[in-house]
């Protein structure tokens, strides 16, 4: 997921032809599909008496929750950026020992679902409860979403700009701040957007870490008052926040162009020799790995060893793992298939409509899983009752929830495949299709793989929609972990979480192998 050459608006001299009608129709269809939960949400919220609605919204507790949500979002995004920049720099630009291993390990926290991480931490210490602890644990779970694109972008940076800065009298630090950082901006922004949206909808981990936010309040509202309408109305506030985040990101991304000004093949930057500081530098990736991977895995293993329920339900491990793999694979492949037309629209046929289509795939990211699941229940029963609680509808829910992860990756890789290459191929006698297949597809393939891997991991760990929409009697690792740990059978539950982490590992490895800019 190399987010490097991102630009929203093309320079005027490269005016683009309009998108083919079929592509535009496809794009609009995907956008409408992605907006199903939002549409349903608005319908529900509209049924609430406005007076009641206002009374509910303008309670002091709501202000507190909104404050919590914003605080968590800002802290986690900032912490993810700092952590990712530091780790990416160590891995890409220094002679840190075992760089390859660290890179995989720093990607791996993606395989540990936030609620498992939260569970692991809380069962070891209560010190992680509250704002500081929640920020730490959730950052540890999500920072790879920033780390990965930043690493890829850093790998692709032409070191000539940094050398120049040296001749212009800048110190190493100044060079990093004024030359490297601005060029990493699209990568940082793309990753931060995903982290911010995940913060909006994060539920399980925050419940365990005792940090109430808007989303946990929505669950409480469903849970305590059993008033679905009011809960939907609260969720619509979350959607507004999501819109703000999307706009802010667009604005920060700006109209500046980040394409390289030199067309030559960039040299690989020389690695900084850390010398004796190597050992000290090891502390950072070491600590991050220990906290983000070591703690939850240790905690799970500990439960396996001390729980008396250990082994119960182990006959379910294989079938649930199999079901999880199949859902995750099918979902991942379909997600990148849908992400392709969206990315082609926004990269090759930039327009207001294209941007709207692309942005609409992000909205579901900010919605709690229960809202999406209920929306799909209503929608399916009304329009395609025959499909209710069948695998296709569950996969559709996964697609709506995780499409944005695929779009982020595919889009950024498509930005590295300039259309001129296809034109060259066509001048060499290839048909349009063949040119796409032999030139653009190979260039975009790593991005597609990364997008599929991200979606795969997300589906492996999804809970709420799976509970409500899966075909009857179909269980995944996440639902089994949930029901066993809810019944306090931690020893029996832990193997399911461990297997969930194990399953996601190949995807993590694939992600960590995805190169940055290919030269």
């Amino acid at each position, binding site marked *: 997921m190399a987010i490097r050459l991102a630009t929203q608006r093309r320079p005027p001299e490269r005016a683009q032809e309009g998108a083919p009608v079929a592509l535009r129709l496809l794009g609009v269809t995907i956008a409408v599909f992605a907006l199903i939960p939002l549409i349903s949400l608005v319908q529900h919220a509209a049924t609430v008496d406005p007076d009641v609605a206002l009374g509910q919204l303008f*309670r*002091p*507790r709501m202000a507190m929750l909104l404050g919590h949500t914003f605080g968590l979002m800002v802290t986690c995004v900032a912490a993810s950026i700092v952590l990712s920049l530091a780790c990416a720099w160590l891995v890409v630009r220094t002679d840190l020992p075992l760089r390859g291993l660290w890179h995989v390990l720093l990607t791996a926290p993606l395989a540990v679902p936030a609620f498992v991480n939260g569970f692991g931490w*809380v069962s070891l210490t*209560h010190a992680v409860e509250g704002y500081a602890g929640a920020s730490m644990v959730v950052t540890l779970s999500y920072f790879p979403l920033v780390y990965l694109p930043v690493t890829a972008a850093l790998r692709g940076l032409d070191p000539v700009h940094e050398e120049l800065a040296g001749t212009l009298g800048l110190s190493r630090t100044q060079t990093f701040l004024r030359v490297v950082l601005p060029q990493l901006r699209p990568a940082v922004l793309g990753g931060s957007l995903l982290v911010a949206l995940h913060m909006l909808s994060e539920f399980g981990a925050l*419940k*365990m870490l*005792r940090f109430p936010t808007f989303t*946990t*309040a929505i*669950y*409480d*509202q*469903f*849970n*305590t*008052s*059993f008033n*679905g309408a009011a809960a939907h109305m609260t969720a619509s506030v979350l959607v507004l926040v999501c819109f703000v985040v999307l706009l802010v990101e667009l604005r920060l991304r700006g109209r500046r162009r980040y394409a390289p000004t030199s067309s030559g093949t960039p040299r690989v930057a020389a690695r900084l020799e850390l010398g004796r500081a190597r050992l000290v530098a090891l502390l950072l990736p070491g600590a991050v790995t220990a906290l983000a991977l070591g703690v939850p895995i240790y905690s799970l293993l500990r439960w396996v060893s*001390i*729980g*008396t*329920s250990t082994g*119960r*339900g182990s006959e379910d491990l294989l*079938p649930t793992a*199999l*079901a999880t*793999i*199949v859902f995750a*694979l*099918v979902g991942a*492949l379909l997600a990148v298939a849908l992400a392709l037309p969206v990315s082609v629209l926004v990269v090759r046929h930039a327009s207001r409509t294209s941007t709207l289509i692309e942005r609409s795939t992000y909205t579901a990211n900010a919605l709690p899983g*229960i809202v999406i*699941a*209920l929306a799909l*229940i*209503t929608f399916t*029963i009304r329009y395609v*009752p025959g499909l*209710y*609680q069948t695998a296709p509808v569950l996969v559709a829910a996964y697609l709506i929830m995780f499409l944005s992860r695929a779009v982020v990756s595919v889009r950024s890789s498509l930005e590295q495949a300039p259309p001129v290459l296809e034109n060259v191929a066509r001048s060499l006698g290839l048909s349009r299709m063949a040119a796409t297949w032999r030139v653009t597809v190979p260039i975009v*393939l790593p991005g*597609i*793989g990364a997008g*599929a891997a991200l979606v795969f991991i997300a589906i492996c760990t999804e809970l*709420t929609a799976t*509970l*409500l929409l*899966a*075909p*009857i*009697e179909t269980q995944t690792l996440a*639902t089994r972990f949930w*029901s*066993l740990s*809810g*019944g*306090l*059978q931690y020893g029996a539950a832990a193997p399911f979480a461990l297997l969930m982490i194990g399953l996601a590992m190949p995807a993590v490895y694939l992600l960590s192998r995805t190169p940055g800019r290919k030269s």
Partner: protein
Amino acid sequence: MTSRLLAVAVPLLLLTGALSACSQEDDGPFITVYNAQHEELLKELAPKFTDETGIEVKLRNGSDFELGNQLVAEGDASPADVFLTENSPAMSLVEKEGLFAPLEEGTLELIPQAYRPASGDWTGFAARSTVLMYNTSEISEDELPTSIVDLAEPKWKGRVSFSPTGADFQAIVSAVLETKGEAATKAWLEGLAENGEVYDGNNIVMQSVNDGEVETGIAYHYYWYRDQQESGENSSETALHFFTNQDPGAFVSVSGAGVLESSDKQEDAQEFVRWLVDEAGQQALADSYALEYPLNPDVQLDSQVKPFSALEPPVVDVSALNGPKVIELMQDAGLI
């Protein structure tokens, strides 16, 4: 890479296709149960029902609110035949929407009136008692309050934990409201909000007491007994204190069972609920790991658990739990 992915995906798809084909072959009678009770419990009970009746039980598991809201969203199109919950408010939600079919008389009369609504639309089938857990090295038994209402007194500041966001705690608030009235409840909630440490989930409450984070915690009895059974990891430093004398702190909440009106398997569904509350089902419950109280007076939990008959719960209408007033009071106190 696409080809590699395909190489994995295609066999897997074929495999699942085969698997689902196998599972669809059992064409005998079956019912679909939306189960918000602990999944493990139903996995112990259902096979026994199938052995006796030949009716398969297919489970959809979720939490009370998830499945309750799902049933409401589904309406008449629901594929569910039976709804089971951990607590009664979700039953009330579905009842209010008119989605339940009345239970048969023969089923209802097996359970004491106090543990089912007057409407006869659903019935309780298991119960749990409110308890005060305490850390035995932090506080001695004689310092413990005689009423849950006392926990609002200033001397308990920072010494009590509870989980207000679950349906469980709200049932306790309902009990206080029923027995003590609105003004007293309001004062109690404000005091508790001031004194208490708020956790999410009764298991976390228990952990925090066990770890010495707080001296006492309000929870249900079975969390403690089950943890003792599992490892004692989260309860070895604690003991249970049962309130007595119809104190609202002695409140007993019920797990509900009901038959959906939209079900086209009314007979089998009714049979399942009847089995659940008659001697066979209740004995299976008592024998399970769950340690929840059976509600059929003919069956007793024979273990170290304090006998159901020894509890002294207050009288509260199960269908009145979690009324809007309770929510309003809790919101005013800033608890939710």
